[in-house]
Each structure stands twice: as C-alpha cells, then as structure tokens.
C-alpha cells in the first residue's frame, strides 16, 4: 500500500509539473517512484515504478500516429567475455570468444506495444529499441556480422535467464491518453551502482522527446560496512576472517568433545 501511495504522490507531482509549465515545448515528463534502492540483510530484489505524462498541446495538428513510449534501463557497465564451446574430437572445449568491453550488467527495454507495431526493423535500429539494438552498434555494417549477432544473442539469452536482461513489449501502460506508467523489476543479483533510465516519446517511428533520469542501488547498514572494510582494510578483514575460522574450528572440538 505504501508504494502505491508513493506512486500516486509522484504522479500528482508530475501532473503538477506538467500543468505549471504548459507554454514550454517539452512534451514529456517522467519520474521514478524512488531514486535509491537500499540493500539490507533481507533484500530480495526491488520494483520501481516509472510514470509520466505526454503534453497533447505540443503535438503537430494532423499527425495521425499514436504516441509510443520506450523505457530503457541501463545498469552499471561490466567487461564480459562470452565463450562458445565446440566439439574437438571427443571433448567439448571453449573455442571462439568475444569480448564486450562495456556491456550493461542490467538492461531492460519496455514499450507500450510491440516493436513491430511501432515501425519497421530500420526504425527499431535507429531508435535503439529492444535488447539487440541496444547492445549492437547502430551502424548497419556491424548489424550484418552474423558472428557478432550469434554472440550478442547468446549474451542476451544467458542474461535473460537471470532476469538481468528484460525485453517487455507492452510493459508500458497508458492509464489515460496522456498518462503512462511502467515498472522496473530488479532481481536481487543486479549489482550495486548507478542505473540510467531513458524515457523516449515516439510517434510514427519519429522521436519527439526524450527524458533521462536515474536511480542508484546501494548497500546500507551492516552490508555496507562489511563491503567497505573488505575494500579499504583488506588485510585486517582477511585476518579477522582467518582468526574467526580457526576459533570456530577450535570451538567445535570443545563443544563436540567426547573422547
């Protein structure tokens, strides 16, 4: 209930913002239900609402195409290697590999209708909508490389198994013709750090407006202190862990001593 109340409060704030500045050419206002996800000892993932409104006045008269909203969430970047096993005689061994120097650790793409309904494949590529188009460079030369495509698809498939990559068509809902909402589902394994959220307003496969916001995932309390000590006092941390291990080992012999 609390989260719903928060969403409504933010919706009201967004609406207020929209109503207070009708003269500006800006057509899109979007916000998040929270900008900080806190990780405590009972953290099992989080859900963040994205919502916003589209200003009807700014629209060119005569344009028949409906509005489309594309929400893209990009988590902290990682350096990844995707390897492929192949058959060598009797054995399956790692063979070909592809390095992704800055792949997002988390990537979500949400749209209000399917990409096919919004435009053709070229439009989708230009707008960088969908996981594949986000991961591949926009040039058509790179898109034609079947070897690269195979590895990108494998990356998407493996990450999607852990819900770290998500592509949700119809993941954005229009509550009224101008109000929309969507939700970001963060699995517990999504790493700490800064997450960029891009909200794009599209009509007839043409980008009309774009807004960027962000949220961060941080550890708090005990978890934060442990991570800090491990990083900044690593030798002390190691010593404490080792001594603790030895004391536990000794304690067990005392507790279970029978002979």
């Amino acid at each position, binding site marked *: 209930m609390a989260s719903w109340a928060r969403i409504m409060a933010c919706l009201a704030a967004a609406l207020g913002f929209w109503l207070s500045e009708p003269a500006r050419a800006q057509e899109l206002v979007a916000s998040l239900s929270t900008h900080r996800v806190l990780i405590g000892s009972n*953290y099992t993932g989080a859900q963040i609402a994205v919502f916003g409104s589209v200003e009807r006045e700014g629209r060119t008269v005569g344009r028949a195409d409906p509005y489309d909203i594309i929400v893209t969430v990009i988590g902290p970047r990682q*350096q990844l290697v995707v390897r*492929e096993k*192949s*058959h060598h005689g009797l054995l*399956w061994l790692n063979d070909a590999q592809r390095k992704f120097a800055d792949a997002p650790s988390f990537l979500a793409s949400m749209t209000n209708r399917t990409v096919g309904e919004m435009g053709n494949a070229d439009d989708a590529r230009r707008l960088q909508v969908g996981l594949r188009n986000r991961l591949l460079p926009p040039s058509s030369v790179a898109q034609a490389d079947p070897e690269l495509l195979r590895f990108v698809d494998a990356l998407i498939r493996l990450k999607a198994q852990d819900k770290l990559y998500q592509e949700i068509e119809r993941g954005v809902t229009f509550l009224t013709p101008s109000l929309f909402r969507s939700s970001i589902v963060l699995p517990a394994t999504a790493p700490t750090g800064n997450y960029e959220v891009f909200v794009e307003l599209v009509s007839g496969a043409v980008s009309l407006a774009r807004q960027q916001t962000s949220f961060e995932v941080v550890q708090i309390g005990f978890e934060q202190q442990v991570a800090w000590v491990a990083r900044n006092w*690593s030798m002390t941390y*190691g010593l404490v862990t080792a001594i603790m291990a030895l004391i*536990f080992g000794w304690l067990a012999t005392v507790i279970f001593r029978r*002979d």
Partner: protein
Amino acid sequence: MQIYLPIAEMPISVLLILAMSAAVGFISGMFGIGGGFLMTPLLIFLGIPPAVAVATVTAQIAASSMTGALTYWRRRQLDLKLGGVLVAGGLIGTALGVLAFNAIRRAGQLDALIMLSYLGLFVAIGGMMLFESLKAMLIARAGTPVRLERAGQHPAWLKLPWRVRFYRSKLYASVWPILGFAALVGFIGAVLGIGGGFIMVPALLYLFRVPTAVVVGTSLFQILTTMTAATLFHAASNQSVDIVLAILLIIGGVVGAQFGTRAARNLKGESFRLLLALLLLAVGMRFASEAVIKPDEVFSITVQGAR
C-alpha cells in the same frame, strides 16, 4: 530463510548453505581432504561469482581442517614433524604454481587444462586406490592380515641422505623426496585452485606407507596452514572473501567435520581407501561427462571486471 551476502552481492538460502557445508565438512573430516573440489562447484552452481566462491571456501576449509586436525592431535594421530616438512615443500610448490597459473591464463587455455588435469588426476588416483583397496579387502576376507606399513621395507628412494625418523608415522626416510612431493602437490593445487588433499592422502598412504589414521591428521594439518594463508592472500589481493557466506559455511563445515572424524574412527583401513577411491572416481566421472556430453548451452559468460 534468505540472507543477503555483502561481497557476493546476492541473497542466499541459509538452510541450503548450512546443509551443503555440513555434508562437505563430513567428507572432509572423514578423509582428511579439504573438500574445496566439492564445495566450490556447488557454490558456483548456486550463482555465486566464481572468484567469491573460490576465496570464501578457503576460509571454510581452514575452519573444518582446524577442527579435524585438533581432534586427530588429541588422539596422537598427527605427525607434526612430517606435517612441517609437507608445509615447507607445499609453500615452495604453491609459489611456483601461482607463476605457472598466470602464464597459462595468459595463453587462454586455462579452462581446458583445469578440466583435463582434474579428469586425469581423479581417474588415475581413484582407479589405483579402488584396485588396491579391493585387493586388500579380498585378501583380508581370505584370512591373511595385510599391513601397509612394513617397517624396514622402505623403497630405495627414501634412503637418500638427510634421513629423519618420523616416529608417529613409523617412517624413517630422507627429507628430500617428501619435500619434493609436497612441492609437486602445492604446484598442482595452485594451478587447479584446490588444496590438494586428495593427492596428498593417497601419496602418504602408498608412496610413504604412513598409517591411515596418521595420514588423515597430518594431511589436515598441512591443509590448515595453506588454507589460512590462502584466506589472507585472497582477502588482500582481490577482496572477494565474503564473511557472511564464510560464517555460514564454517558453522555447517565444522559440525559436519566433527561427525566425519568420528565416522572415520569406526572404519577399517581398506574400507576407508575404497570409499575415498569411489568418491574420487565419481567426481572424475562427472568432469568426464561434462566434457564429453554435448552441453545444453554451448555459450558461457565470464565477468572480467566492473567499469
């Protein structure tokens, strides 16, 4: 019940980890092996990052080998002198192994090398022990008692200079072959990322003819020292030891190890060697099937670092 791990950055089921570590601790206490080759793959299977799994398991092995070694020490089944020589040799081998590990990793074929070495080691050692222990059991059933430790019948290579008496181990041998062997085990252990207990135990049994009970205690002592050092090394060099996961693994591991040492007490030497042989063969078969059977997913992802 779920708890969030601060270094692995993911939640984990407390009961599942306790049960798994107790089972591995039992095997560790029983056979005098660290159990890292069982625990690390299990943790990776649960989704814990490999670097965190490898580093944190060293703390658990330190704890469960501490409890095991203390128990054997009280029963006077730990040869401190032999253990000291093994530790010295092991340190030299580990240092060389770390250098070799980095060279092989640069060449890019680490996965294949690790897999094939595991396969070779497990099948060779397991097969040899299976054959020997079955033979010993059959002879024992026929009525003629067999003794592995034949005093005064040491092979020639134990008669090199610098001979020392290891009373508890009923061994009178040159220090050189023992040092050399410990260095070899340390080398293999560092390259494969394991403690090497499963190589050390059969070697002490068959090559040095040390009594079974003393082998286990002494091997646990050697594992205790190397794993304590490894915990410090991992924490300082790559900050991937997760203390919350370590506590869970340690609690399960030390309790399991206590029951393991007790179970080993009621076990005959031949049955002990047969069980260890079967365990090694089973793990070897798992590696073999992984390498030979077509995998469901031929692709895999390795995270090399955050940016």
